[in-house]
């Protein structure tokens, strides 16, 4: 019996080695380095959440393409700050990677929020997981039927939002600044986007905003009317809804819109500790590319309304740098007020 299991185990090991070695050798050294080693994947949010899901969803594929074992560690705290700090300060040997919500982190760093020990411009970016175009919606029975109605309204419009560090609040704040809307009243304090959504469905508040993927089902079901898409190109399923640039805005407003859309182009991305050896970086970037362009994975993700759209690590860095240089003072000041 013991012998049998020994044989089985060796078959598994040999099989594993053979399977692993099928990975085309992009860089022999890096491939040899990662084989059989463990790589820590830090998820700066709780187990069972959206980011945790994505990490666990990608892990088996990453293992297949690298030959290493991925260990997922949940390090929640401070809206991602704790985990991101850990990735930043880890040993730069290419064995620590992480995932981050950029829609929250970029504005936080721009505002100089407390607790941040990392510099987003110095991380080695692996890839983009997805971009998240946002959409502004109102309740199905609302008197507002177009974005022009909203802009020209004489009444105060009460909107539902999560806390001030959430992307819902940022969406609404950006719209307010871009079009210089004085009659927006943003009610913060909902625990999550689904609680904010329910408040609008109940008719307590006029509208809300968040990612298209979290709203599309409710729009299709007729609970929401979509009035404006915050993106620079048409979004699948919402082709008839106008985009943010379709309406007149000031020069300052346009700068804010540009910055925000730049940030949203890299909504969720994966990074590695700064200073890791270049061959390992290239090897890992390739593994992420293969994982996120695997048709099977992309199709499964789409089915679950958890979209995946790969973009190279180099491009991610460009977007990040751009958002730091482009952010106009009005936006920076507003963020500093919010994230004090």
């Amino acid at each position, binding site marked *: 019996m013991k012998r049998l299991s020994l044989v089985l185990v060796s078959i598994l090991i040999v099989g594993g080695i053979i399977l692993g070695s099928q990975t085309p050798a992009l860089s022999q050294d890096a491939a040899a380095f990662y084989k059989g080693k463990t790589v820590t994947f830090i998820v700066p949010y*709780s*187990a*069972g959440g959206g980011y*945790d*899901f994505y990490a*666990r*969803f990608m892990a*088996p594929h990453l293992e297949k393409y690298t030959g290493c074992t991925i260990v997922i*560690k*949940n*390090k*929640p*705290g*401070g*809206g991602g*700050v*704790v985990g991101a700090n850990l990735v930043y300060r880890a040993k730069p040997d290419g064995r620590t990677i992480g995932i981050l919500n950029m829609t929250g982190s970029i504005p936080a760093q721009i505002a100089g929020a*407390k*607790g941040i020990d990392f510099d987003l411009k110095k991380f080695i970016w692996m890839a983009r997981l997805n971009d998240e175009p946002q959409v502004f919606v109102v309740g199905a029975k609302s008197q507002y039927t177009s974005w022009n109605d909203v802009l020209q309204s004489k009444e105060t419009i*009460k909107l539902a939002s*999560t*806390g*001030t*560090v959430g992307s819902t609040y940022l969406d609404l704040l950006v719209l307010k600044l871009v079009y210089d809307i004085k009659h927006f009243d943003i*009610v*913060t*304090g*909902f*625990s999550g986007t*689904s*609680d904010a959504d*329910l*408040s609008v*469905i*109940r008719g*307590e*508040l006029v509208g809300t905003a968040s990612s298209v993927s979290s709203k599309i*089902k409710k729009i299709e*079901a007729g609970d929401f009317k979509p009035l404006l898409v915050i993106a620079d190109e048409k979004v699948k399923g919402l082709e008839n809804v106008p985009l943010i640039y379709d309406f007149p805005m000031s020069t300052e407003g346009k700068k804010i819109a540009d910055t925000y859309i730049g940030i949203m182009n890299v909504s969720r991305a994966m990074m590695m500790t700064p200073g890791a050896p270049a061959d390992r970086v290239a090897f890992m970037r390739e593994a992420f590319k293969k994982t996120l362009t695997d048709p099977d994975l992309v199709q*499964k993700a789409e*089915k*679950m*309304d*958890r979209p995946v759209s790969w973009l190279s690590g180099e491009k991610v860095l460009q977007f990040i740098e751009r958002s730091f240089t482009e952010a106009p003072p009005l936006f920076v000041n507003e963020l500093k007020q*919010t*994230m*004090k």
Partner: protein
Amino acid sequence: MIEALWDGLILVFSWPAIGYMSIGVLFGLFMGFTPGIGGPVTLALVLPFSFNMDEVSAIAFLIGTHSVVNNGGSVTAILFGVPGSGPNAATLIDGFPLAQKGEAGRAIGAALAASALGGLFGTVVLACLIPILRPIVLVFGPPEFFMLAILGVVFLATLSGDNPLKGVLAGLLGLLISLIGEELIVGTKRYTFDIIYLWDGIKLVPSVIGLFAIAEMVDLLLKGGSIAKPDKERELSGPWTGVVDVFRHWDILVRSSILGVVIGIIPGLGGDVACFLAYGQAAQTAKKGEVEYGKGNICGVIAPEAASNAKEGGALVPTIAFGIPGSGSMAILLGALLIVGVTPGANLLNEQLDLTFTMVWTLAIANLSAAVIILMLANPLSKLTFFDGSVLAPVIISVCFIGAYMTTNSTGDIIVAIVLGIIGFMMKRLNFSRAAMLLGLVLGRIVEQNLFLSIRIFGAGFIYRPIAMGLVVIALLVMGWSFLKPVLQRRNEKAA
């Protein structure tokens, strides 16, 4: 309808679904025994395995795994005062004192029977409510959440037996601790002293581990002896006595289940609240001559367990009917259903009704088999409580720290457990209600958040909304009664 009911049952017992369900149940129980790991984490871990299963197997596997995690967690809560996850925290308030009396078997039996029956009750009620579910979900807004939470705060006074003031004080301490961290409304960081760990507030599981498990183990080490004092008479009270207890206290079972279902179908209040509110209402309606709550009253085990499982059944229906997940676990389950090709919505209640009943049957069968497994283990496990404290306590304290650390994988969790362990020990010695403090801790944030939202949305008049007003009346009655009751009792005793 009947046909779908029957077809659903056949599907559960078809191969390989039944095999996957058995694996799921065993794994779920194991994760439940591991402190600090709750339902959502367990589901997240097993989720990838379901991607390549057929839809019936995936449903049987995932729901089977998830529905028993809580059962495993209540066993460690009762035996050692270490809760598996948030919802088990309320169970240990009376479950652990029962173990100290040598009645661990009885408490485990009651917990299992209550959760199985609560789950069943929840499912039946929901099946009847399906046609009018949507209006019910939509009738609860921030004012109603606020008043439900206030009702919980009002229960505080009763949790300290004959001294309501002490209960209120302990509850206020809990409310104060709940204020630590970044609040949701304008993002102000309160009492965080620039420590990032504190931004997210004081978590429930490390707090409970400190307040109860660590405090009790320190107490045990100081006193010497074992958790349970060997007592010839009581050694007979096995798990079946507990099962019988549940049927004797059917009124508490029914009330707690209804509370659980209501909180389950309205997304936004969270699972921990259901258990603590159920515990509060059970303590509120305690009759004269009953064992004091917090000192080992079997009803204190029945109420939260029934509510906890009824709530999960409740959370399932909005998930399948509308695609609005009623809890964290349901959000994960929703994703899994979509991937194996089950689209939540009206068709699950019409054409695919047999699949819906498969879910219901899986819930029932998984719970039943978990109950049988644990009942077989209950007697040998409860013998552990007779071990000498000097052997057992160091082991349990280590387990406590692991359990606390699992919450956010941070040393902060361990520090919270130690600090609250010291507070808990002092409260035990000074006879302050730790249950009241926990209730305050769980409800504090909800009260604040929903009061703020209510005023922002409706103005100060929010309280005049019909359901909110009804809850105000109930709260006033409960409050009046809890201060009047001791006075009346004393007068009666004098008269007699």
